[in-house]
Structures are given as C-alpha cells and as structure tokens.
C-alpha cells in the first residue's frame, strides 16, 4: 500500500527522519518498503504491510504508530466530533443487526445540513497519492478516514433509506443489488448485506449500493462504521468475485473498538469540509465488547528464544513505545496488556517478536549452538539416487529436469496405449499443457529429444524424478528413465548392465515380453524390441525401443531407445558390498569359436550350451561379433565368441583346453541347424 510521507508527518510535532531514512528504519524493524517516490512536495512510500499486520497497519495511523515506536516520538491523534447539534442520530435512523456473529458491531451516526460538493485540493491530492479517485466531499471523507484509520466507512443518503431503517442480515435467495459502479450482483444466503426496510442497499463490508447513493441533493448523511466477521466477508467476496479496499481490510480483521473513533473522525471532517452538523448520540450495536488481551512475558524465555539478554528496563520501554500497558513488572515475568488494535498478538512469542524487531535483529550476535554431537543419519534413498546419477553421467548421459505435468495431448498418446484410469488430473491447471501429473517420465523425455534433435543427433539423456499414478490413492514414486536417440538398443542395454553392476545388483536378466490383454503397459514400446529388466524374479523396469507410432506423434526423425526403471524397487536391491575375487596366478588360454545359427536363435541359448559343455574351467565367454550378411547362407547369422579358459590351481595344458573346446563344438553341433565354423 502507498503511504504519504506528509500525511505520516502530520501526526507528529517532531520531524520524522527523511523519507529514505524512514524507509530504512521501517524495513529493518517493521515492513519492507518497495519504493520511495517523490511526487510534488510529498514522498510516497510503497510499504509491503505484512498480512498479519493488516488490521492495524493498513492505515496511516498504524504506520505512524510504528514510526512513533521507532523514533520515540509521541503521536498526535486526529480531531474528532462527538456531535453537538440539535438533532439526535436516532431520530433519523434505526439499526437492527440480525446476526451478531456476522456483525459484532455496527455504529451509525448522522450528519445533517450537508453541502455535497467537490473536495478541497489537499484532500483530492491525498486520495490520489493513495490511488483513490475523488467523487465528492462526503464520499471522499469516508475513504480518507479509511486510509487514515484503517476502518472502512460507508455513507448513505438518509432520505433514500426506506423506512429509515438499517438492517444487517444475510441476503435472501434471488435478491439482487446494483452497486455504486452500476454493476449488478446476484446475492444469496451466504452474503451479508445492509438493507433498508425494502431491499439490500449495500453488500456488507464489500461495496455500497446505488440506491442510497450520496448525490448533490443529499442533505442528511448516515455514516456506517461497522465490524464484520472476516470469514463471512472473505466468503462473500469470493462468491461474487469482488475484492475492494474495504473487503480486503475486513477479511484480515479489524479491531471492533475502532468503529467509534473512525465515525467521529468522519463526522468531524464532514462538519469541517461540507458544513454539516453532527447529530448527537451514536447508534452502537455492540453487544460483546472486546477487551484488551493480557499476555504474560517471561524474560528468561525471551532471552532463551532470541539468544541475547535485553535488559528488563529496555524491554519495558520497547513495549510501552508500542502502546502496550505493563500491568506487572515486579518479577521476571511481565504482565502485559495489549491494545485491541493489535489483532496479531496472542501468545508470548508474538511479544518476543515485537521486542526483537524494535530492539533490532541486527543487534543480535551470531552464536553457534551448543548441542550433543549427534552425527547426521545417512539417507539411503538420496545416497543411491546420487550414485545412480553419477554412474549415468560418467557413462555419457546428461541429466534433465522436466515439469511434473504433461499436456492433454501427451496424455492422449499415452492413454490410447494405457489403462484409462491411471492418471491424475489437476483441479486448476495453468493450461491444458499442464493438465495432468506425469504418469511416466518418458513423455517429457521424448519432448526433450524432439526439441534437441535440431541441434544435435547425439542425444543421451536421463531423468530421475517422481511420477504419479492413481491406484486406490494417489501413488507417487521415484522413477529412473533414460533415452538415447538412434538404433542403440544394445548400447542402452550395456548401460543398464553397467548401472546395476555398479549398484551392486547381480542376477540381472532380460525377459522378452509376452503381453497379456490386461497388461497393455508395454505398448508404448516396439512390440518386438522390448524386454523386461528382471532381477531374480522381480521385474524392475523395461528396456526397449519406443513404438514407431509414438515416435511419429512426437515428430522425432530417428529411433529412440529407452529404459524405464522403478527406482523405488531398484534402491531396495542396491548394495555397497563388493567381495574381492582372488586373481588366478595361472595364465588364461583364449580360444575363438564361430557358430552359424538361424537368425531367430537367441545368443543366450548358445551361451548356455557353451557354458554347460565347458564346465568350470571356462572363466568367461565373450560375444565379440554378430554378423548377418550376403556371404552367409540365407536366414543365418554368425556368432563369434572368445572363450577364456583358466584354472585356479594350475596352468592349463594346451591339450586339455583343446579337449574342452572340442566338447563344446560337439555339443553345439547336436543342433542340426547350428554349424560351428572351422
């Protein structure tokens, strides 16, 4: 909110610090000041009043009180008028509050013989500085007093109030109102209104109605200064989607004891500026008077919480400067009476904040805590996550962070291949681009590839993040997904092998996927180029080429191979244990073996045969070449292996190795379609 420096100065006899200095002081001890701007002979301070201080500081008087505490200068309260004319307020209007909870206090006062006219220049200027438009002197005064005291006021033309009655009640079903700005609103039972004998004349605490509007002919003004239940105003304002300076203030709560001062202040100004005569008496529906709170402040606790000892005398001075009363200061526990305008203060910690900020946080020296030496716990989830990222990075993959949302279009692609139910929709998305929570990391990774393929064709990326699926509840889980551009199934398979090995996971195998009608998960994938990644009997994820249809949707020019691993499962399998395998002292012998097999034969079948036939002297079998080409017979491929023989206790004789090798060859050739090449 914008505050006028001159206006603030008007509450003090003593000069306030210069505007910039004042702003600095406020910033350190109260509120952030966004801007200090010179306008004409005034300076405007744009102050970010904290939301809990709105009740007392959304007003010049409130900020002046802060200035008073910070500069140790007393405040001069503005003049008021209680009324002195021959008329009584109650002769003009009566007030009936039907719901005391919705309207804890309603005060009304009448000013007669009013001459409605344009406001004087200074008044117009002040309103303008604070962003309000000038209407006429009476309306302007109501607004001025709101800016000054924080209490929203409303002025009715007494002559236009049917039955000379003001009734505070909830609107009836289907009731309507036209507001001062000629807007029409449909009301209902949740919305509190000010009504006359006939119909609503204002939306309580939000906006005045057109009907009893002050105009040039208005002679008798009824002023309203009331206190409304913040929740009801908030609800009403949301319902009709109308926020005003008044509703904003009421939503944050206002001290009910402020209404009287504000209404008398407005009466005084109308008398002064519009030649009105203030009627005697005040209509005041205030059944449950709010009394000041008492809070006990333990000085030992204050010291313990702030970490600095502030002398008792100084604490008391600070509290007094904020207009608090010290009821008892004999002991180390002070009894404090807090003025009712400070709605934000209820517990001792609130008072400690007041003491701390006025004392100045900058005066609290940094002190390291003295605590027991408890070492931090190792978080394994984070540990494995970071290790996984390192392994992928070292193997040439680049980490991306994508949004947690996916678009309507992406989900359509995904869902046409998936169960319908599994995705979670946002109630209030920013756009259709971000309508669903990502059920898979693959969708956004494909987007990344699509965008990056313009600049490079070497794309190896991964993401480790949360995905969201709906089962019974919202299910949130860490997922690890990597993608590679190109026909690189085996490169990515090698990556999975390396990753799992480095994470201490053995017994990894790949199962060609046999999809069942219910389990359609697989259909993101190329049906013939996809495998389940399994550790023992548990499936932990998928590896495969993305289905050409989907690649097409994403406008990607090349094949994409992806692995998609359930990280929650993965991290449970991780282990830091490594056991050293003694290195044999005896030399290894290497023999090569090439075998011609039908194209559809799995390498694993051949490997198994070699290993079984070879027995325990085989240390390793390494497939070093797969060849399918013109020179070979139709439908065949050639697999070439290095077979490494080694014993732990002796040097193998060449003859012994040859014997095993021959055994292997014989075993392989038992299959009539397999032919070992010699």
């Amino acid at each position, binding site marked *: 909110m914008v505050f006028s420096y001159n206006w603030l100065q008007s509450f003090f006899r003593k000069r306030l610090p210069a505007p910039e200095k004042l702003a600095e002081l406020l910033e350190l001890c109260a509120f952030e000041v966004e801007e200090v701007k010179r306008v004409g002979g005034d300076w405007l301070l744009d102050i970010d009043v904290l939301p809990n201080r709105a009740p007392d500081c959304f007003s010049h008087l409130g900020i002046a009180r802060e200035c008073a505490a910070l500069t140790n200068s007393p405040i001069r309260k503005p003049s008021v008028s209680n009324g002195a004319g021959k008329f009584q307020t109650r002769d003009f209007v009566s007030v009936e509050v039907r719901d005391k909870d919705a309207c804890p206090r309603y005060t009304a006062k009448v000013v007669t013989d009013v001459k409605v006219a344009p406001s004087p220049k200074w008044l117009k200027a002040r309103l303008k500085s604070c962003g309000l438009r000038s209407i006429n002197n009476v309306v302007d005064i109501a607004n001025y007093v709101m800016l000054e005291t924080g209490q929203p006021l409303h002025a009715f033309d007494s002559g236009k109030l049917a039955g000379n009655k003001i009734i505070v009640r909830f609107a009836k079903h289907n009731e309507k109102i036209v507001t001062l700005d000629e807007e029409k609103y449909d009301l209902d039972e949740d919305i509190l209104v000010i009504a006359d004998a006939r119909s609503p004349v204002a939306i309580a605490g939000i906006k005045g109605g057109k009907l009893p509007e002050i105009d040039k002919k208005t002679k008798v003004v009824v002023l309203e200064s009331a206190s409304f239940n913040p929740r009801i105003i908030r609800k009403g304002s949301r319902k009709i989607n109308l926020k005003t300076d008044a509703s904003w203030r009421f939503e944050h709560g206002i001290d009910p004891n402020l209404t009287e001062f504000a209404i008398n202040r407005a009466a005084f100004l109308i008398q002064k500026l519009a030649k009105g005569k203030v009627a005697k008496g005040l209509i005041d529906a205030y059944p449950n008077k709010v009394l000041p709170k008492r809070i006990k402040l333990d000085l030992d606790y204050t010291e313990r919480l702030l970490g600095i000892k502030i002398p008792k005398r100084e604490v008391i001075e600070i509290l007094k400067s904020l207009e608090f009363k010290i009821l008892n200061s004999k002991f180390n526990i002070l009894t404090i009476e807090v003025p009712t305008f400070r709605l934000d203060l209820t517990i001792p910690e609130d008072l400690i904040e007041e003491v701390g900020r006025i004392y100045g946080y900058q005066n609290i020296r940094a002190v390291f805590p003295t605590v027991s030496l*408890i070492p931090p716990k190792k978080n394994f989830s984070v540990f494995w996550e970071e290790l996984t990222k390192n392994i992928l990075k070292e193997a040439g993959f680049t980490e991306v962070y994508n949004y947690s949302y996916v678009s309507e279009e992406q989900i359509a692609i995904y869902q046409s291949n998936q169960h319908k139910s599994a995705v979670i929709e946002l109630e209030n998305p920013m756009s259709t681009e971000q309508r669903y929570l990502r059920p898979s990391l693959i969708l956004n990774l494909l987007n990344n590839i699509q965008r990056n393929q313009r600049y490079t064709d070497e794309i190896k990326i991964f993401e480790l993040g949360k995905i969201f699926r709906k089962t019974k509840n919202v299910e949130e889980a860490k997922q690890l997904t990597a993608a590679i551009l190109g026909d690189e199934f085996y490169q990515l398979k090698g990556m999975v092998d390396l990753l799992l090995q480095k994470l201490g996971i053995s017994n990894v195998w790949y199962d060609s996927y046999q999809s069942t009608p219910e389990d359609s998960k697989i259909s993101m994938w190329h049906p013939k180029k996809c495998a389940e990644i399994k550790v023992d009997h548990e499936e932990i994820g998928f590896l495969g080429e993305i289905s050409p249809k989907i690649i097409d949707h994403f406008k990607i020019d090349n094949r994409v191979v992806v692995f998609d691993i359930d990280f929650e499962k993965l991290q449970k399998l991780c282990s830091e244990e490594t056991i050293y395998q003694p290195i044999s002292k005896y030399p290894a012998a290497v023999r090569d073996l090439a075998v011609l097999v039908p194209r559809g034969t799995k390498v694993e079948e051949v490997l198994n045969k070699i290993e079984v036939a070879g027995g325990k002297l085989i240390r390793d079998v390494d497939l070093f070449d797969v060849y399918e080409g013109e020179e070979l017979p139709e439908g065949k491929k050639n697999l070439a292996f290095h077979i490494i023989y080694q014993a732990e206790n002796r040097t193998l004789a060449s003859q012994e190795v040859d014997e095993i090798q021959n055994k292997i060859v014989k075993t392989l050739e038992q299959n009539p379609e397999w032919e070992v090449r010699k």
Partner: protein
Amino acid sequence: MPKINLKLLKKQAQREINRAGDLKFLNEIFKKYLGKRGELTLVLRSLERMPKAKRAKVGKEANELKTFLREKFEQKKFSFAKATEDKEEWIDVTRPGKKLVVGHLHPLTQVKRKVEEIFQAMGFSVVEGPEAENEWYNFDALNIPKDHPARDMWDTFYLKDGLLLRTHTTPVDARYMEKNNPPLRIITIGRCFRHEATDASHESNFYQIDGLMAGKDISVANFKAIIQEFFQRFFEKPVEIRMRPSYFPFTEPSFEVDMTCLVCGGKGCSACQQTGWMEMMGAGMMHPNVFKNSGLNPKNWQGFAFGMGLDRLTMMKYKINDIRLLYSGDLRFLKQF
C-alpha cells in the same frame, strides 16, 4: 686363459661404442662385452680362479670397467632415442585432443549436493517427503487455518483426488517431528509447486530447501550463526546476513533473511538496487502450534526453521538469468555444467 689387458679392452670397447650407428649394433657390442659370454663377463667369472692378491686388484679394475661401460652404453642409447625423437616422432600439440563423451549433471543436482553437504557437515540429516501432499501437512499443521487470508500467500494447485501439490517443503518438518523427538536437525530439498504465471524468475514447479533445528534452547542467535556459516561456505566468501521482520504463520518471530550482496560486497550496486543486500530466504522460530500439531509439547522445545529457493541459489551461482532454462531440457544449456 688369455692374458687380460683390461686397459686394451676398455679402449677397444669405447671405440666400438662410439662407432655404433644404431641401436641394433649397439646391442651387439653390449653382448660382446657384457653378455652372458661377453669378454668382460668372462674376465669377471675367471676371478675366482685367481690367486687372492691378483684377484683383488683385477677384480676392482674389472668391476670399475663394467660400471664404466654400462654407463657408456646408456649414454649412447639415450643419444639414439633422443635423435629419433628429434628426427621422426613429432606431434602437433596444437591439434585438438580427442573428444571424450561425457555426461552432465543438472546444475540443480550439483547445487543440491553442495547444500546438503554443508548442512550435513553441521549435523543436519537429509530427509524427504511427498510432492502430492494433503491439506493438513501443507497448511493446517503449519498453523495456516482454512478460510484465512494467510492461505492466499500460497497459490496452490489442487488435484482432483483431494490432495494438493505441496507449495513448500515445510510440510516435511511437520511429518518428521511427528515421528522424531527433538533435539533434531534436518534439511530437505524437494520439488514444490505454485499456481502462478511463469516468467524469467518464476516457475510453477521449483525446488525449495527447508531446514529445521529444534532443541531445548535453539535461538535466533544460533540461527544467525548457522545460516551465516552456510552462506560463507556456499559462496566461499566472507558474507554477512541480516534479518528483517516478516510473517509466516508457522514461525514466530519470523524473518526475511538478507545476505551481503555478492557483486558489490555491500557497498551498493545495481544488482542489489543499491541496498548492499540480497534477499535470500524466509525463516523464523518454529511456532508453538506447529510443535503442538506434530505431537510435541511446545513448552519443552524451541527451534528455527527456514526456507530458501534452490533455483535461486543455482541461478546466482552460475549467473543464469532465466529460471525456465532449468526445466527446458535444452542440451546446449545442460552441457555447460
């Protein structure tokens, strides 16, 4: 046994070594004198059959000659190697090195690690919590009542299933305190969401660092020390912090925390709008109601909590001017880290 003339042998060997034109020839000369059946080797072997007095004299000379010749051979060998280097083996050192394919960790990951490392060194445990959160932990437990304007401080994404996307990582504090008694020190870094328009400095999903330290007498002064230490270690500069009053429903007192401007060191410059300070985080002393809501007795415990943007720290560290780059997946950006 021929008569041994070691002097002659020396002369002869030296001449031959000098004449040797290449390494192969040199090796042959070596063999001739020092090989298994080399002339000098034979002399040395014959020593044991000599009379004692002679043996000592000849032995000494022969061994000296052996050392001398070995040295000569080495020198010659070295001169060959040097000559080859000079003549044939030349490389262009200005040619670029072979490009190794390496991957890159996202800058947010790198900064997250650094933050965790610093706090872990100060005894803080790293904890995690869910991104899809319920109203209780995101708001109510943190003393942010329903239908209260304070809730407007967080623009929230709601899910159709009744949950919401957490607007901060502070709910993790509440969850942790429910299960663990103080004294405690925790740090949590995680993804948060705000329903707000995106621009160069705002994202609807972002990362927040949240820390909590609670005990019998953890104070504002302690907070100042811990956070100052954190910033000094993070930026590797002697920075100071200052606290200004703020408001968060879950802390009382609450602060806005500023740090000495990194650009000007506090003198005032355009980066800090001439204030000498940069806004870094929100913080405060945990509100008694939060302890209460987590099942702890506020009479027994007190402590500080703070929240800070990981994205902002990352942007400051690497001088990134647009937060959206972090979530763009653009390899031209990511490969710089």
